[in-house]
């Protein structure tokens, strides 16, 4: 491998020839540089998209701070070079390097990828290749770094199974240190690489895919996933932390503009609403809140240590954070004179949300965002997100009359059971919202519509559902676009090609890995970028791997099918998800489970942890004796 100085010298020749060279240079305020030989474990944290998108990632910020606090570990960073830089690096034979030390990634002990979404898979292969590390776990030797990955896609790790040595399923705050400890113990033992994987497989929440072997029925569905190593548990239960640890405050302050230049504080993890399309809502159970004082203190510290002018309070559902009013009032009091922009996403559709937003900002810049998701009562029952149209109209009217000129609404099409009438209802509702705006502030009223398309995700009640066909999605999008070609309305949507790709990868099995590989071989990367147009290469990659993409996306799956991800457990039972799917088909609502426990399985899965905590710590009420018994686990 090249030395850091050699890499630096080669970089100097190329950086002025590429766009935004600051992406490849590091040197941010709060960057941690440690002497290489002063620590025993070197970890590279990798976000497999460009710097601009990866730098603000909160997950990596948590690891960066927590690992670098240890005297025996250093954590550095790497991101994907953009196309121009990749070409220049390959031309100059510069391997992927870490920004802090300019060390080649191959020199590190652990490469930790975060994979929050599937469209980062090809980039991950590309980065391993740029790092000059064998792509497949089986081809790596004792001197190659350990390659681990975590993030939301780890709940179905199979499409990346051959490339990643070990996945972290669930929350990484504690387990990352257990992985480091296992690595240290292995390193001093001088044992060969398989011994490291054995150690890792014994850590709760860690999945070592090479210790499992899927077997298939002739029709391509899974017959069983066999455990082929004695160290490997039959099921990987996700890791969670009992209470949220103090949030990071020493955020990296970039020297160039990135997508979010801000302090991000998670105020709450998890959500009790139970929207049936929502992956995050299932895998992040149970709900845990951070105390107001902890949030405010963290912001205070982070403001002092970063100088950022924007703060984002993150959660899946801000309005459900119990002390939300207290938090907002404390924030506006404490930070009134600071010229801060504070964002509070995921608000409920009611006037209380407007009160909150008014307290947070003096001027009403930007739009007011709401996510009704569906526009007909029937669809709302199917997806389990009940909001009365009248309430949305009243709220929109109040938003316009209280000084905002733009309302942004998010809808999702392609839900199971959706008809063209349900799509038409989105159009009608949007028109009605605009009428409300016009009646209050006339032509100044703007409406932005964001149209998503359902991608059924593993571990959700819709994991059995088929993705809409390309043509169906296109005709639904066309209805909304054509009918809302009105002054004052702006519609944005997800390209159906991207929906299909995400759909194939989300519910893929281990055979899909060969498709990912073949796609990468064909030059596919940056799938998350709408301008990259990789669709045809993906289709060719399926052909090459001898697989049918429709098998993964457009098949209505039988309830008794074994899924490729069934041995990965978010703590929520499959039987509960089946119940929810059936309720959806019967158009039945399930109330918010903070009122009453519906036995999703999270409590028994983390029974011991729960018992060690106060009653009030999670939002799960103590389960009442049930009148109707919940069916036992089928799988």
């Amino acid at each position, binding site marked *: 491998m090249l030395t850091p100085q050699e890499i630096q010298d080669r970089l100097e020749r190329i*950086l002025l020839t590429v766009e935004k060279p*600051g992406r490849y240079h590091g040197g941010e305020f709060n960057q941690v540089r440690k002497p290489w030989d002063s620590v025993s474990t070197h970890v590279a944290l990798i976000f497999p998209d460009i710097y601009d998108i990866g730098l603000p990632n909160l997950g990596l910020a948590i690891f960066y701070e927590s690992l670098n606090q240890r005297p025996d570990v250093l954590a550095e960073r790497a991101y994907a070079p953009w196309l121009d830089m990749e070409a220049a690096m390959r031309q100059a034979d510069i391997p992927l390097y870490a920004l802090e030390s300019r060390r080649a990634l191959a020199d590190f002990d652990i490469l930790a990828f975060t994979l929050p979404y599937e469209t980062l898979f090809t980039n991950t292969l590309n980065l391993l290749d740029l790092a000059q590390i064998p792509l497949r776990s089986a081809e790596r030797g004792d001197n190659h770094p350990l390659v681990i990955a975590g993030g939301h896609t780890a709940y179905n790790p199979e499409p990346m199974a051959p490339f990643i040595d070990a996945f972290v399923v669930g929350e990484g705050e504690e387990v990352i240190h257990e992985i480091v400890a296992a690595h240290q113990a292995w390193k001093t033992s001088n044992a060969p690489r398989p011994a490291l994987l054995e150690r890792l497989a014994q850590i709760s929440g860690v999945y070592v895919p090479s210790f499992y072997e899927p077997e298939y029925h002739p029709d391509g569905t899974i017959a069983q996933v066999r455990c082929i190593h004695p160290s490997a548990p039959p099921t990987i239960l996700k890791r969670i932390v009992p209470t949220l640890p103090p949030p990071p405050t020493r955020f990296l302050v970039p020297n160039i503009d990135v997508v979010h230049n801000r302090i991000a504080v998670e105020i709450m993890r998890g959500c009790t609403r139970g929207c049936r399309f929502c992956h995050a809502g299932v895998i992040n159970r149970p709900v845990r809140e951070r105390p107001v004082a902890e949030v405010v203190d963290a912001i205070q510290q982070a403001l*002092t240590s970063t100088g950022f002018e924007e703060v984002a309070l993150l959660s899946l559902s801000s309005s459900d954070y119990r002390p939300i009013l207290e938090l907002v009032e404390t924030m506006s009091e404490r930070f009134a004179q600071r010229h801060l922009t504070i964002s509070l996403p995921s608000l409920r559709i009611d006037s209380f949300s407007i009160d909150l937003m008014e307290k947070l900002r003096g001027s009403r810049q930007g739009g007011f965002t709401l996510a009704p998701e569906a526009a007909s009562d029937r669809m709302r029952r199917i997806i389990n997100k009940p909001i009365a149209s009248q309430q949305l109209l009243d709220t929109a009217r109040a938003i316009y009359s209280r000084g905002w000129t733009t309302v942004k609404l998010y809808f999702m099409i392609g839900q199971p059971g959706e008809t063209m009438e349900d799509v038409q209802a989105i159009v009608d509702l949007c028109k009605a919202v605009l009428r409300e705006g016009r009646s209050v502030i006339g032509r100044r009223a703007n409406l932005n519509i964001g149209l998503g398309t359902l991608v059924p995700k593993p571990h959700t009640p819709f994991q059995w559902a088929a993705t809409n066909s390309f043509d169906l999605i296109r005709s639904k999008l066309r209805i909304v676009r054509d009918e809302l070609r009105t002054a004052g309305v702006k519609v944005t949507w997800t390209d159906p090609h991207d929906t299909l790709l995400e759909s194939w990868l989300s519910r893929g099995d281990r055979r899909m890995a060969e498709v990912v590989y073949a796609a990468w071989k064909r030059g596919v990367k940056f799938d998350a970028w709408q301008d990259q147009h990789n669709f045809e290469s993906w289709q060719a990659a399926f052909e090459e791997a001898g697989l049918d993409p429709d098998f993964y996306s457009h098949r209505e799956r039988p309830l008794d099918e074994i899924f490729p991800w069934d041995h990965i457990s978010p703590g929520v039972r499959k039987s509960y998800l089946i119940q929810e799917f059936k309720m959806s088909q019967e158009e039945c609502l399930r109330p918010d489970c903070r009122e009453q426990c519906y036995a999703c399985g999270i409590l028994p899965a983390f029974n011991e942890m729960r018992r060690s905590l106060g009653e009030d710590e999670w939002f799960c009420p103590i389960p009442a004796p049930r009148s109707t018994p919940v069916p036992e686990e089928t799988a």
Partner: protein
Amino acid sequence: MTIRCRILYTKGPDLRYTANLDVHRIWERTFRRAQLPLAYSQGFHPQPRLNQACPLPLGMTSQAEVLDAWLEEDLPPAQVQSALQKAAPPGLLIQQVEIVDLSLPSLQTQVRSAEYTLWLLDPPSLEALRAAVDDLLAASELMRVRREKQYNLRPLVESLTVASSQPPTLHMQLSAREGATGRPEEVLDALGIPANAARVERTALHFQSS
């Protein structure tokens, strides 16, 4: 009461690839971290009052950057300097802070010329370099195209010399008036040297004597 601080600073290698607009942001955040009360402009979108003398092209370092900053409190310059230095990112070294008259004209209008030192990564022989420099200086005009506009580079080159150091370095003084700014990479190009084969540092800014 408002004061106007004139800050002389170094932009080091860590900030080489940070463009001018982003340098502005870096200053804002440095002031916030230093907890110094920046004055804000009036209006619907109040902006902190910071004023850079002369944009530094991407990729260059500088020993001689100048910034004016308005503060809402009368603070001694030494205190401002030490607070800023503690809060500054790698690559930003504050050399001097002085309080200047609020009524002085803006820095941009006062800049006249800038000096640069260039280290060549693939240096030609001293003789070849000297010959190229002599040719350039002997020309009465040097018509070039930048951003689709034609201009004459020659009058913008106020001086250009070769130091016989090992390897040889170039020193140049270029005009930096509004609408008449010479760029070191344009001079390099005119000498037949690619812009990415040199390390460029601004060593001085000259202002109209007031």
